C-alpha cells in the first residue's frame, strides 16, 4: 500500500509517498524546491495562504518523483490534523480529503507529534520498545515513553518556551541570524562553554522543562557584560540547554526501564546534543537513536508512515475529521 502524506502544520509545506516497510519512495519539502521560479515573486514564509500556493506543486512533485503510478496514484492519503496553526492545518486537511474523495481511497488524520516518532522508525526500522523519545523543536519540547507503536505516555513537557525557540531567540539577540539553531551550533564551537554559568532550570527534578528563565539570564548577562564574546555566550547557552535535555532524558530512561533514548525534532540536528546523548546512552548501556538530518525537521514522509500504521490499526478517519490546533500526543492513543 502506497500512502501519500501531507504536512502543513507549521512553516513547511511537504508531501511524500511512502511504501510498506515503511520505505520512503519520495519526499518533498517546499523549502527544498525552487517554487519562487515557478510562481514568480517571493513566497511568504508563513500562514495558510503560503501553504495554499505551494501545496499543489509540492504534491505533484512528490507524486512524479515517486515514479510511474496507476490510477489512483496512491492507495491512501494521510495528513497532519494537529497540533498546529488552524489556518495552515485546514489547507492540508481539506486538500487531503479532496484528493482522497477524487481518487476514492481511504483518508487518515495524523497527529504531528506521532509523526515525529515515526520519523525515527524510518531511520531505524527495527526499533526496540520501550523507548524514551525526546522531541525537541521550535514549538515543542516533550519527553514521551513509547511502550509500543500507538502506546504513548507523556512524561514531561516544557512549561514555557520550547528548546528550539530558546535557540532562536538567543541567536537573534546575539545577532547571529536565522535560523538560530544552526547559527548557535556553529558559533559555539569557537566559544568556551564554561564562560557563563547559565541556569539549568529543574535539571534534577521531574521531567518538565523550563527555558524561559535561561533566555532571560542570557539577555541579562549580555547587558551586564556587553564586551563578552558571542562565541562564549552561545557556547555557554548551548551547554546549559543540552545539559538539561540530556540529564532529563537519561533519568527518564532509567526511571522507566527504557531500552534506549530516541531524539526527534529540529533541535535533534544540534551537534552537541547528538554527541552528548550518544555518550550518555553508551555510559548507561542503552541505545541512542539519533535521526538523520532530513528526519529532524518537519516532513511528510513521517506523516505518511504514521498514517500507514494508523490505517492498518484503526482504519480510516471519518470525513468529518477537523483540524485540532491543540492536539496532545496522548490524544493519539
Amino acid at each position, binding site marked *: 500500500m502506497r500512502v501519500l502524506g501531507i504536512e502543513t502544520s*507549521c512553516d513547511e509545506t511537504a508531501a511524500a509517498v511512502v511504501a510498506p516497510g515503511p520505505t520512503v519512495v519520495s519526499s518533498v519539502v517546499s523549502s527544498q524546491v525552487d517554487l519562487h521560479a515557478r510562481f514568480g515573486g517571493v513566497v*511568504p*514564509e*508563513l*500562514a*495558510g*495562504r503560503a501553504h495554499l500556493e505551494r501545496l499543489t506543486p509540492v504534491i505533484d512533485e512528490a507524486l512524479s518523483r515517486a515514479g510511474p503510478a496507476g490510477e489512483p496514484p496512491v492507495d491512501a492519503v494521510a495528513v497532519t490534523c494537529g*497540533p*498546529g*496553526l*488552524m*489556518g495552515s492545518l485546514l489547507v492540508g486537511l481539506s486538500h487531503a480529503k479532496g484528493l482522497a474523495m477524487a481518487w476514492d481511497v481511504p483518508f487518515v488524520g495524523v497527529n504531528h507529534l506521532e509523526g515525529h516518532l515515526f520519523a525515527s522508525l524510518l531511520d531505524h526500522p527495527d526499533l526496540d520498545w520501550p523507548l524514551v523519545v525526546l522531541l525537541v*523543536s*521550535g*514549538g515543542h519540547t516533550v519527553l514521551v515513553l513509547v511502550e509500543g507503536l500507538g502506546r504513548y505516555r507523556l512524561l514531561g*513537557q*516544557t*512549561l*514555557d*518556551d*520550547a528548546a*528550539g*525557540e530558546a535557540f*532562536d*531567540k538567543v541567536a*537573534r*539577540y546575539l545577532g547571529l541570524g536565522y535560523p538560530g539553531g544552526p547559527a548557535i551550533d556553529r558559533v559555539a564551537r569557537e566559544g568556551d562553554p564554561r564562560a557563563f554559568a547559565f541556569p539549568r532550570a529543574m535539571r534534577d527534578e521531574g521531567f*518538565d522543562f523550563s527555558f*524561559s528563565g535561561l*533566555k*532571560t*539570564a*542570557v*539577555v*541579562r548577562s549580555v547587558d551586564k557584560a556587553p564586551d563578552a564574546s558571542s562565541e562564549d555566550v552561545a557556547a555557554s547557552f548551548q551547554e546549559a540547554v543540552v545539559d538539561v535535555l540530556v540529564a532529563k532524558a537519561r533519568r527518564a530512561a532509567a526511571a522507566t526501564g527504557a531500552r534506549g533514548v530516541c531524539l526527534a525534532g529540529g533541535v535533534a540536528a544540534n551537534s552537541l546534543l547528538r554527541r552528548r546523548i550518544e555518550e550518555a546512552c553508551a555510559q548507561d548501556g542503552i541505545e541512542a537513536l539519533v535521526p538523520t538530518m532530513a528526519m529532524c525537521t518537519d516532513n511528510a514522509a513521517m506523516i505518511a508512515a504514521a498514517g500507514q500504521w494508523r490505517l492498518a490499526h484503526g482504519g480510516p478517519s471519518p470525513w468529518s475529521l477537523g483540524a485540532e*490546533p*491543540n492536539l496532545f500526543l496522548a490524544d493519539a492513543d
Partner: protein
Amino acid sequence: MSGSWSICVHTDRPEATRALGAALAALARPGDVVLLVGALGVGKTVFAQGFAVGLGVEGPVTSPTFTLVRQYRCGPTAPVRQLVHADLYRLDHLSEVADLALFELLGGDGVALVEWGDVGAPVLGEATLEITLVPEPEEPDRRSVRLVGRGASWAERRAAVAGAVAPR
C-alpha cells in the same frame, strides 16, 4: 473612538508580574484584544501565565512563538470562554498578522493576548489594552508596567483597571 488613557505601575519581582496578569484577566470581556509589549526576557511569558491562571486555564501555558497561536479553554467562572494566545515575534508583514485571523478565532466568546502586539496594532482593531513591560536598569527584577486603554470598552473599565493593578 473614545480616546485613550494610561496608567503606570511597578512590579518588583516575577511573582508580582504574574499576579498583575491574573488581576487584569478578571476584567476581560468577550472580544477583548490585549497587546503585550516588551523586550526579550522582560517577563511577557510570566505575565501571560498569570493572565491564563486568572482565566482558570488548566495545564501549562507555553510560548506561542513558533506555533504563532495557541488556544485554551477558560475555567467555568471566567468572564470569557477561551483564551487565544498569539505571538507576532516571527511575523514580518502586517498581512501575515491579518492571516492569523485572530478575530475569527475569538469567535465572540474569547479574549486575545498578543505578544509583541505593538507591531500588529494597526490591524488589531481600535479597542485594545496595551501593556508594556520595561526593565529598570538598577534593579534586575523590577519592571515598570505601562497600561494604555483605547476605545469605549476600555474607557469604561479605566477605574477597574486602576483598582486591579494598584499596589497592595
